[in-house]
């Protein structure tokens, strides 16, 4: 296997299992320029009755064979039943070497590990979390997995790098024609945007619902014109684990301090007062606290954001209802308040990775976001970020929207300096998920590091009382507390590729030699 050094100094393959690979050249070096893949075109006359009696009938109708690629989306999160339901049926049919292409996986998908061990699943493309990631680290997949961001997944499907044979779309509400949304029914989860590319480009599309409604099911996040079959099942998921009643702000004083620093930085840098102010923050405890602190700053200063970017939560919804933002642009809902607001408030807008995150387009709004607040497992002295592997080498997380959201004007990583004795600022990250050139600020409880490339930010924060220090000082502080961590041991065998949002290879994950 030929390896070349890419723009972040990582040795990556140029070809793997017959697929030609391009090494990462820089965050904005790739200019696209290809044409989009096309879905098979069929005649409407063949689709007079799409409603099938069972999932088995749908699998039969789709003609799934060994080696095919089946896809899923993750809006039902840890409450999802559909991935396991479908994969168990495919396994019982004795199918082998399938490629599973989910937008994300959760701990509830642990049964996939059994299918991987038995050869039903050859590899995963898209996202690996928890147990499935662990199996990948141990080299249990027959072929090399590919990890992509949400925008990267859309791009890969659109560009033809990831061809989906059959897409299974879990829908909290759908009609017999295949129009579907996520805002009605017992399994309401909010937007269904992550399944949009699947519905547009897969050869066969199956909508699986536990809430069949009379035509027309509107709003139609998924349009019936892109759907082959509809199946009604008893339950597509466990409502209690699809969304929580409420997402809860962190009570950890340390994490609150990190969130406070991040919000203060947005104020002190003057960004909050700039025209077209907008921001994005996730559903983690620090992010929620950041949103709440921003709300206080904005209310005090009379600032209204052009938009805030979900995952929506109660805290985002409060911003909208208090008039502190004009819109929520929402990719997924993390709690019931988010789902209800998306359903009831016309200024809470459902989005999908084509408009929000895709790099090969005529523009996406990731680059319009002023401030993006993201988490990480490691950040190194070059500001490279790892969100996939832990410091001990285990591949435990997908990329989510990380590399896409990092295209914001100011990307802030919030993380404790030390997490369970493990330093978060390291000399070199185990795996590069995003290049340092995209990361502008690292906020920890013991200091804030600004990427030296952002001279403008350093200048703007000169009078700030925030504890701004060089990143190597944070590194020394962490090592001083914890001691020097041991590096993980890997074999030469590549088990997964970390694909950047433009389709180039930013890093490769090797098989881990576990330490006892």
């Amino acid at each position, binding site marked *: 296997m030929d390896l070349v050094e890419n723009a972040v100094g990582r040795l990556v393959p140029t070809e793997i299992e017959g697929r030609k690979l391009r090494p990462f050249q820089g965050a904005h070096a790739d200019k696209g320029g290809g044409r989009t893949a096309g879905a098979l075109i069929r005649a409407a006359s063949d689709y007079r009755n799409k409603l099938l009696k069972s999932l088995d009938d749908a699998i039969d109708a789709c003609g799934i064979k060994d080696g095919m690629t089946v896809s899923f989306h993750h809006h039902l999160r840890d409450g999802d039943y559909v991935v396991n339901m479908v994969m168990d049926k495919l396994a019982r049919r004795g199918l082998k070497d399938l490629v599973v292409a989910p937008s994300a996986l959760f701990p509830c998908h642990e049964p996939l590990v059994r299918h991987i061990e038995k050869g039903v699943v050859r590899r995963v493309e898209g996202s690996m979390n928890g147990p499935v990631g662990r199996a990948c680290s141990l080299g249990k997949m027959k072929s090399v997995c590919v990890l992509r961001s949400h925008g990267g997944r859309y791009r890969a499907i659109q560009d033809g790098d990831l061809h989906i044979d059959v897409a299974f779309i879990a829908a909290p509400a759908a009609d017999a024609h295949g129009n579907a949304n996520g805002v009605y029914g017992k399994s309401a989860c909010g937007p269904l945007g992550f399944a949009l590319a699947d519905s547009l480009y897969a050869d066969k599309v199956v909508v699986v619902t536990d809430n069949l409604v009379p035509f027309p099911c509107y709003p139609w996040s998924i349009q019936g014109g892109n759907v082959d079959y509809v199946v009604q099942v008893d339950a597509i998921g466990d409502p209690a684990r699809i969304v929580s009643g409420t997402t809860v702000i962190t009570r950890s004083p340390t994490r609150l301090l990190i969130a406070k620093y991040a919000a203060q930085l947005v104020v002190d840098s003057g960004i909050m007062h700039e025209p077209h102010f907008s921001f994005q923050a996730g559903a983690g405890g620090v992010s929620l606290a950041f949103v709440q602190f921003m709300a206080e700053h904005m209310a005090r200063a009379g600032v209204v954001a052009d938009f805030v970017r979900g995952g929506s939560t109660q805290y985002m919804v409060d911003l909208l209802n208090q008039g502190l933002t004009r819109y929520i642009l929402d990719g997924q809902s993390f709690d019931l308040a988010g789902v209800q607001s998306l359903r009831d408030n016309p200024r809470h807008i459902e989005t999908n990775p084509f408009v929000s995150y895709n790099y090969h387009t005529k523009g996406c709004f990731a680059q319009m976001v002023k401030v993006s607040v993201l988490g990480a497992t490691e950040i190194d002295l070059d500001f490279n970020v790892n969100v996939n592997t832990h410091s001990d080498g285990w591949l435990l997380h997908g990329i989510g929207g990380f590399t896409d959201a990092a295209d914001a004007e100011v990307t802030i990583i919030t993380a404790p300096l030390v997490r369970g*004795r*493990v330093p978060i600022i390291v000399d070199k990250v185990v795996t590069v998920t995003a290049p340092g050139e995209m990361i502008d600020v690292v906020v920890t409880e013991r200091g804030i590091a600004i990427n030296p490339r952002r001279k403008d930010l350093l200048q703007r924060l000169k009078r700030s009382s925030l504890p701004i220090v060089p990143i190597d000082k944070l590194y020394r502080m962490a090592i001083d507390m914890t001691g020097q961590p041991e590096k993980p041991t890997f074999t030469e065998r590549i088990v997964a590729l970390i694909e950047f949002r433009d389709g180039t290879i930013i890093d490769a994950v090797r098989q881990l030699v576990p330490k006892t």
Partner: protein
Amino acid sequence: MAEKIQVGRSDKSDLLLTIERRTRGGIRLDLVSSVAGTFGQQIRATILSTLEALGVRHASLTVDDRGALDHVIQARVEAGVRALWPVEGLGVWPERRIKRRQVPKDRLRRTRLYLPGNNPDLMLNAGLFGADSVILDLEDSVAPADKAAARVLVRNSLLAVDFGAAERIVRINPLATEFGAADLEMVVPAQPDTILIPKCEAAESVLEVEERVAALEREHRLRYQIWLMPLIESAKGVLNAYQIASASQRVVALCFGAEDFTADIGAERTVEGKESFVARSLLVLAAKAARVQAIDTVFSDVADVDGLVKSTEEAIALGFEGKGVIHPAQIEPIHRAFAPTPERIAHAQQVIAALEEAERRGAGVASLGTKMIDAPVVARAKRTLQLAKALGLID
């Protein structure tokens, strides 16, 4: 002496250690760690070197580590060893040492944050939240069975944890209990800034602590004197407050503990604090008469910020200069309540300017307008400016 003991906790930043005495077979170590992949070897080496330094050659250990730092690992191993073997001398001190200078006697003490002495996770970041003082507690927040282990952990934390600008106070157990003297012997060599004397009822209690502290300072050649802070928590203590406050030049402040006080007088503790109003006022008078600070009790409802601010404002009105804090979220509201108004800052600046001008002119008396500036006015002005500076209100 026991043959087997368990110390520590299966908790974040800590470890649970079971150690058993053996007469042969060397050291048998069974280690499970949440950070085995990154620190497994170092943890093993720290445990073994601590045992070696303490002279333990045969033992069986089971360790369930949840990311404990080296000074915590050492403390847990040493506590286990101390329970099963006699240990001479100071034990094993952590390699990492934070350098400290003596804190001024009259420093700001608006907030004193209580930290349970047996919880390393809470201590780790305690210096980040801006509390004027942190209290590593060996008394009420530590169960009797954990006191010996907490004592070693507190000593190691004094040496290895960076508490930032906060004054490092240790609350010992009363000397009348079986724990108090051992607390002092363990923690004083690690040079805390201040010892908080609980349930202090008479000047003799202060003198007894002072005597032991002074002896330990001499024995271990400490670089500076340790301050004392009596905690008044009973009717008798209130009535003896002035004698307590003036018992030693090391006393920097009198603190009030409402929980024990109300129990002592047989009253219910209320939000309004009527039951302790007289006691708190007497305590302020005693402290001021002895020229030391008066610090109020804790406000125990962490969620009630309005109540906390109200309680702080009342304490300020009574003459208190600080409050106890049980959660970092209480620090900022208390500091805000203590913040001087712009008018007070401007007046204080005028007072100091007038004083400097009088000194320049060689005048014996300074005045502002038609009013003479006497010593209390100057002291108050200096205090106001000190507060304003601490809050970043002036350069």
